[in-house]
């Protein structure tokens, strides 16, 4: 594999072909789980694992799947991975798993997972597919962790559950921003990230 190809394979899903900010996929969970950093972080890892493993599995059997039933096969693989992740979370991180509630199960419907399987793993070797899954997961992950960080900091004055806004600031009249706890707060932050990204990188803007 040429190194430039390798580089674009890893960097593109993180930046210029970011699944969330550029392709607008996986928005649902990005709004739902990002009120705090910890669930966002766990969600990011869970999604990364699911994408990477399903990508690898589907890629390894891609030549055996009849194209008419490929979606069903993909779903079975993804569902298996999601259940595995869910069980691991329940066993080792019960509290976070509880706070994520249905959203771990809903990774099955996360468009990024199916999108990468269809667009990439069905045509590429196992190693590359696995790498693509990791990169896509990181692309999704940094966005929701950033959103989660801003929402927790502004909405409850904490980061990872630890209060960082000093009491002195509250005493002189500072209050937490209630909008950040609501779903529109995530929309606004996501929109702002997209705005900044498109301003920095002109090529992402539609030509008039």
């Amino acid at each position, binding site marked *: 594999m040429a190194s430039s190809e390798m580089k674009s394979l890893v960097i593109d899903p993180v930046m210029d072909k970011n699944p969330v900010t550029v392709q607008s996929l996986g928005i649902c969970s990005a709004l739902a789980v990002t009120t705090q950093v910890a669930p966002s972080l766990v969600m990011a890892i869970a999604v990364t694992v699911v994408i990477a493993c399903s990508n690898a599995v589907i890629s390894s059997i891609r030549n055996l799947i009849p194209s008419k039933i490929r979606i069903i096969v993909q779903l079975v693989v993804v569902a298996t991975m999601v259940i595995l992740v869910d069980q691991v979370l329940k066993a080792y991180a019960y509290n976070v798993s509880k706070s994520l509630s249905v959203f771990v199960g809903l990774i099955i419907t996360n468009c990024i997972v199916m999108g990468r399987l269809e667009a990439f793993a069905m045509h590429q070797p196992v190693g590359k597919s696995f790498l693509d899954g990791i990169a896509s997961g990181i692309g999704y992950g940094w966005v929701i962790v950033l959103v989660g960080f801003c929402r927790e900091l502004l909405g409850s004055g904490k980061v990872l559950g630890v209060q960082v806004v000093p009491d002195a600031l509250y005493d002189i009249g500072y*209050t937490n921003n*209630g909008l950040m706890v609501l779903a529109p707060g995530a929309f606004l932050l996501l929109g702002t990230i997209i*705005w900044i990204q498109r301003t920095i990188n002109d090529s992402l803007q539609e030509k008039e």
Partner: protein
Amino acid sequence: MKFLANIFDSQRKHFEKGGKLEVFYPLFEAKETFLFTTPHRTHGGAHIRDAVDSKRFMSTVIVALLPCLIFGIYNIGYQYYAAQGLQADVMNYFCIGMWKALPIILVSYAVGGTWELLFALIRKHEINEGFLVTGLLLPLIVPPNIPLWQLALAVSFGVVIGKEVFGGTGMNIFNPALTARAFLFFAFASDISGSAPWTFLGGDLVMSAKQAVAGWSGATPLAIASEAIKGSSVESLMAFAPGDYSLTNMFIGLIPGSIGETSTLACLVGALILIATGIASARIIISIFLGGAVMGLIFNSVADGSSNAMLAMPFYYHYVMGGFAFGAVFMATDPVSAANTNLGKIIYGFFIGFIAVLIRVVNPAYPEGMMLAILFMNMSAPLIDHYVVQAHIKKRLSRG
């Protein structure tokens, strides 16, 4: 005037292309066209040349806002003394009012103006005049006790997210001042709802906090109405509430509320100025009042036996409470975010009034439905216009 013009002429070379201060051309241009007519002329083509550019347009709105502003300042002082069971002369009212209103207006203009300038410099265009109005509208729709840092955040939000994201003045979907107000409402709910924020009672560094008389509540009429319980009529509740909440008094505006929106009378004066100068659409204003009346009458007809006492409230009470009149006259008529076709304006206005009363009566969590109704219809305005135009095209085509 000649003297001022000379200053501008002598300084222009510094700001034009190649000059030392080229970056600051937008700032220079803004000051110059504020004082004089613009030096730019249209090149060719049959343009109508009129003295009214958008800067004059906005200045007229400012003039129309003055009755609300002056009354609002007076009312802050009036409420200050009324809450303590005192009376004072008019000058005292105005002094207390200015003490509270002036910082709010200054912060609004300073912060908003800075953002406008920043975007004008980055995007290399002239400073848009839109903020001239937004900067005064926002102080008029916030409570007098609003913390200034929250106001500064809200102005930033209104200008950046409400307007600049979409491309600046003239491109915004939502009214920037209302966007800022909605931000305040959802972000700092405790500082903008309940009964505390609406009446200034001292407590700043200079003015020591005063004690309100016993039984004084400071609640806005809308809050009182939404808390009315079964069996009591809102009118009787209003009559017995501490403070004067009679229909006449609410019309005049001597009630707790946001700075500039308590007086329906002052809003009507503003409406006359705007309609007479052709700046606001009378269609929108009238259909908003009509929509409110229709929804109010529908509620009246189903009020019997309901636990919601506000259902039975006569519809004209909605006109004088909260920001209904102010929103109808100054917010909904913003030509950028309103519908633009004649039929569209009527539909747009009607549903603003309709939804505002609906939210007020049915959802006690949002006593002020006007803000949400206008924002919602701002969003729907392009769709309304689209269908009105399509229907018109269809009609013309079928005529053959």
